[in-house]
């Protein structure tokens, strides 16, 4: 150990209180309300500084959030309401339902003025821990994204009966008093997409690449797609492939190529990144493709140009999340089920974007007619699991 090194280490030690002081100082200037708590505990040692820094910073975060919320809404302050979102394995900008859920939450932040935070899960075994992170801080509503979080949300809901929870894509039997399951009629959404696929297919063969077959949502998408295609063209052949992963775009692409080689000229990808890989590959091979969950024009195809993407079978997870936040703000939240379907706008099909010129002129009218039929019950998809 030579002197330069020791000097460097000493410098680092000296820097700590300086930096800590910076933290408290800015806190003092930005949020006068927080100074009382900060000043109360004088940072004598670095360890103490460390501890005092956290309430100060938190106080500032809350204070600034409250200030901006008040500025935007100007109404009475629902800014005390804190909503926490725990994503499934992935990111809030990964182009899957994680992103869609987060967008709904962001809309709630701007329109309702609630305070939002999120944790991105990096491993399935972290679900419980991430939910706990919000629950222990008393968040008013905690939203879990995804079927796989079913057990974790249930455990948290029983441990924290006073907090409210919501979970995307999961329904409890029997319903829990403080959990709202946000589920969708995937089959209706895919039914519309399948109908469009049948309208544009020239070969009379279309394909679907799904994620894990055991996940009900995937199966309902794929079967709904088949039913919709057969509704338009009873003789159409639908090739269905399930891949045992949601994160394997290569395998999805390979499956799509196989279907194309067999003559399919429309490919529907329904399985997270696997499905996105399938439709990307298929689009590269000049085959019409259909996205899933949200408008993949904006996500997988990065806002175009995407002349081969004819539509996406959308689940309006954003609307569902927004609605459940609104219920919490309005005080009308109750445990149970939110079923997004054609009737309440919970499912939809995405605009045609760049593919519009390649589609039949009356495509939109026909799809709207089918959507209306699904909504009023004159058309049923006939999809049942098991």
């Amino acid at each position: 150990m030579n002197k330069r090194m020791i000097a460097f280490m000493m410098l680092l030690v000296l820097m700590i209180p300086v930096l800590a002081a910076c933290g408290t100082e800015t806190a003092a200037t930005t949020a006068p309300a927080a100074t009382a708590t900060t000043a109360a505990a004088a940072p004598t040692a670095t360890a103490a500084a460390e501890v005092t820094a956290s309430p100060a910073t938190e106080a500032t975060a809350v204070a600034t959030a409250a200030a901006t919320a008040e500025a935007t809404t100007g109404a009475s302050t629902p800014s005390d309401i804190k909503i926490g979102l725990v994503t499934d394995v992935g990111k809030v900008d990964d182009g899957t339902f994680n992103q869609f859920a987060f967008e709904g939450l962001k809309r709630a932040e701007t329109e309702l003025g609630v305070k939002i935070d999120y944790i991105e899960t990096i491993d399935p075994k972290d679900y419980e821990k991430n939910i706990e992170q919000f629950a222990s801080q008393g968040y008013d509503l905690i939203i879990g994204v995804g079927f796989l979080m079913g057990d974790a949300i249930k455990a948290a809901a029983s441990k924290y009966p006073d907090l409210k929870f919501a979970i995307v894509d999961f329904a409890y039997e029997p319903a829990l008093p403080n959990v709202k399951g946000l589920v969708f009629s995937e089959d209706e959404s895919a039914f519309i997409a399948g109908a469009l696929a049948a309208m544009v297919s020239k070969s009379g063969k279309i394909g679907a690449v799904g994620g894990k077959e055991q996940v009900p949502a995937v199966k309902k998408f794929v079967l709904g797609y088949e039913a919709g295609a057969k509704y338009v063209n009873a003789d159409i052949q639908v090739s269905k492939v399930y891949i045992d992963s949601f994160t394997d775009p290569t395998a999805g692409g390979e499956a799509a190529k196989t279907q194309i080689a067999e003559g399919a000229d429309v490919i529907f990808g329904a399985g997270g990144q696997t499905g996105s890989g399938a439709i990307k590959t298929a689009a590269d091979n000049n085959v019409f493709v259909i996205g899933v969950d949200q408008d993949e024009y904006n996500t997988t195809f990065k806002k175009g140009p995407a002349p081969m993407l004819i539509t996406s079978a959308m689940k309006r997870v954003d609307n569902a999340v927004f609605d459940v936040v609104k219920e919490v703000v309005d005080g009308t939240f109750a445990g149970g089920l939110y079923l997004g379907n054609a009737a309440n706008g919970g499912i939809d099909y995405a605009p045609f974007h760049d593919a519009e010129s390649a589609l039949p002129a009356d495509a939109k009218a026909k799809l709207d007619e089918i959507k209306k039929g699904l909504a009023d019950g004159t058309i049923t998809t006939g999809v049942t699991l098991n």
Partner: protein
Amino acid sequence: MANEQQAPAETKKPAEAKPTKRSLPWLSEAIVPLLAILTAVLIGAVIVFISIPSNKLPAFDLSLYGSRSDWFFSTLPERLRVTLSAFTGLFSGAFGDWSKPSTIPGAISNTLVESTPYILAGLAVAVTFKAGLFNVGAEGQLLMGALGSVAVAAFMPQWFGVASIPAIIHLPAALLAGVLAGAMWGIIPGYLRAKTGAHEVITTIMLNYIALQIMDYLINGVMKDKSATLQRTPFIHENAALPRIISKATDPSLTGGQAYPRLFTTTSSTWDLRIHMGIIIAFVMVGFIWWLMNRTPKGFEIKTVGENPEAARYAGMNITGTVVGAMGISGALAGLAGTSQVVGLEYNLKAVFSSGLGFDSLAIALLAKSNPIAIVPAALFWGALRTGAGAMQINTGISINLINIIQALVIMFIAADQIVRWIYRIKQAEGGKITFNRSWGK
């Protein structure tokens, strides 16, 4: 910034300043890993500083700020504050928010729970490093351990046609099944290595896939809980569960009617902790492996074979037996890591169990330089990062991948320790103890 990471380093500094050649030999060993962590955290802080999401900063407004760069400079204090809160968040997530004492037990418990499999799997890898082997198969051995233990823990009463088996038989049987399944998955590549020369890196990687697929097959097949919507096994029998140390009584409606044991039952939410006896087992194993490596002839053989197999052969040591034995011990430890997750924490095995724990354990063994005692702080560091990540993201909105970046930087600085030595002007370790060795993780 980076207070909580620097704190441990600080306390050691006065000791460092003194001549330490004799008094603290472990410190000169530990200095590079500690500085690697420090450097990685500092770089992490710089990344936070630059990449703070815009919604945590005052919005850019042309009428208020002359240009983008003015805006950037005017947000410097705010950026500093957010950077600081990223690390206070990391700290409070891992060790509790010390202004709210009720959060402390839960956070520390979560960190220990997270660290438990890291300690066991890290030990597993360290043993093979000592033997000159690179066991990439800890993941597969861990999965097999989890599978073996859940098979016994959930299904053993059925095999004998009884309603339940006393805990004194059932729990040890479940642990043993996990250990043996893991050991078997370690012995296979060990034997192939010793007898045929098939490189253990290749065979263990392959065995990882086999273990994963076996697990997937069984959980989707004969071991599936038919009543569950998730792909998972039934809940294990309550007599086969490792007790939690202090927790609320289980709610049988969440656990398929099983009431799992607790050493102390509480009704307070503050003390409703997930920490289980697995951590005690992990500490016992740390002591055992330390004793085995440093106080027994077997340990000496393993180290000699690792450092110089030719010399070991010349000295009459049984190379085959040692290699197979080391892989067996390693597999058993990794299996125990999987077992403790199943019988101590999760109480069932899910198809999404796939953990990456086995791969992280390679990093932990490297960070600890394969020293069994040093595995504990290394695993705790890893566990604390993973546990604190959520609170860090709540505080700052920084992507949770920052944790992965810090972890990767730590490993990079450990592997290329010349970088750290150059930055901090540390000379090579004194004594010039240069051994020609083919072992890893030193």
